């Protein structure tokens, strides 16, 4: 079910309504558009200003294409995204290879304007297009024994030239607890600014978990596995003392090498002022209850 969560912003703040669905998503999105008109009008206008498209697409951490922030924009054109399918397996009723086109034909594409906070203490505001992960999980039928969701990025070193270097243990893997995965904020994004997902941003389909540091939002997903054990995650395997499984945005818990109390919005040039980082990246109201009784310092 779409529209379980409403943006603070209206679509018009980001893109003209007519432009906000890309061609491939248009068919799937028609139903959503109709609903959007009926949905309660956006709440109090927020001061969230979307980061420029050029900034979002030229400043990326996507190590499959190199370690520099500009490498993904330079090298991601090699990636072929068609055909694309996602293997859904593990504790599901209907395991199998799901063609992306089939998935999209069943989904309602919405626009979600989310804050994006990198663990490196920089941030953007991104108008994503996508559908809720829960809808995809429902498609596969999650079994009651499942407690976690594991994700895997494409491994194709010929196209993802960064995978030729041992920078990380490829393929990139990530994971969420099932209740996090089912949360209405958790998005499978297929585009931004109403365009198909740019390759450097994780085409054709990526995860977006706005209350967690950016590296949790795994890109170019080819596999989703339901499991009852906490799945391994790439950065945690690489530097366990610095990157935990949860990785919720938290100004009170520093990264060992820098403070997380504030962040630099990207795109403001030399003199862009730091802004305070918000707990759960500003989504405290929506997600704090998922972690009731948990020590967030220990479960970083």
């Amino acid at each position, binding site marked *: 079910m779409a529209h379980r969560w409403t943006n603070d912003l209206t679509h018009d703040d980001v893109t003209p309504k007519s432009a906000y669905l890309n061609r491939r998503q248009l068919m799937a999105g028609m139903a959503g558009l109709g609903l959007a008109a009926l949905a309660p009008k956006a709440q109090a206008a927020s001061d969230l200003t979307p980061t420029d498209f050029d900034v979002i697409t030229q400043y990326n951490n996507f190590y499959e294409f190199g*370690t520099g*922030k500009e490498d993904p924009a330079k090298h991601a054109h090699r990636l072929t995204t068609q055909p694309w399918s996602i293997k859904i397996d593990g504790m599901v009723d209907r395991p199998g290879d799901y063609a992306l086109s089939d998935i999209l034909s069943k989904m309602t594409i919405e626009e979600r304007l989310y804050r994006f906070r990198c663990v490196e203490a920089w941030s953007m505001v991104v108008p994503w297009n996508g559908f809720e992960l829960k809808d995809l999980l429902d498609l596969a039928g999650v079994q009651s024994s499942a407690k976690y969701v594991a994700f895997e990025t494409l491994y194709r070193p010929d196209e993802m030239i960064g995978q030729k270097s041992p920078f990380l243990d490829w393929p990139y893997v990530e994971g969420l607890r099932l209740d996090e995965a089912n949360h209405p904020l958790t998005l499978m994004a297929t585009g931004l600014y109403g365009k198909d997902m740019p390759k450097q941003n994780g085409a054709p389909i990526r995860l977006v978990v706005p209350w967690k540091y950016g590296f949790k939002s795994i890109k170019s997903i080819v596999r989703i596995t339901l499991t009852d054990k906490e799945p391994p995650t790439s950065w945690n395997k690489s530097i366990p003392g610095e990157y935990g499984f949860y990785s919720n945005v938290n100004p009170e818990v520093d990264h060992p090498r820098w*403070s997380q109390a*504030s962040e630099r919005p990207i*795109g403001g040039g030399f*003199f862009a*002022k730091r802004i305070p980082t918000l707990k759960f990246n500003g989504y405290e109201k929506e997600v704090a209850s998922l972690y009731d009784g948990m020590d967030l310092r220990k479960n970083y």
Partner: protein
Amino acid sequence: MINTLNTLVRKVPNWLLYLVGATYPAWLLYAGFTGGLGVDPVKAMEHALGKVGLQVLIAVLLISPLRRFTKFNFLSWRRALGVIAFFYILLHFLVWMVLDVQIISQVKADILKRPYIIVGMISLLILLPLALTSNNLSIRKLGPRWRKLHKMTYLAVALGGVHYIMQTKGFEYEPYIYLAVVLGLIAIRKLPKKRAGHPAKRQAA
């Protein structure tokens, strides 16, 4: 050939080296304002100054073995290159403090508790008196102590290499290559001087 080059090198006046040295940060600033450093000019400048600063420092350390094992003599450039490198690293620090971290309490906290910043800071603090005594007056006044003091360059550059490794995430070859080069240069210094011309020794080197 070598002799002509050496004469040419000696002829380059110091002010020209300083001028060329100063154009690099000036260019970075210009590029940063005109989009040439990408959408995050602060980080780009911080990284470029740290990296090029370290490279120039390594060049400084290369001058002595170059003279010893080849006949290239860049000795007349060493002082200016050292001062230029210090200037880059100082700017690297200032960009970090003023444009990157900005908040003074956070700057203090980082200097006190982040190991990679502490290592960088120690390196910078070692370089400071070296830069300040890079003039004829200090050389005359300090006498033999000047040489001893300036041997600290090796320690400062090695710490710079360690700092470079410590600030990476994931695994990258590059910083290890830098540190290996620095350690190699330190090792070469330890080779016995007198017998360096001995054929057997040469092979070992």
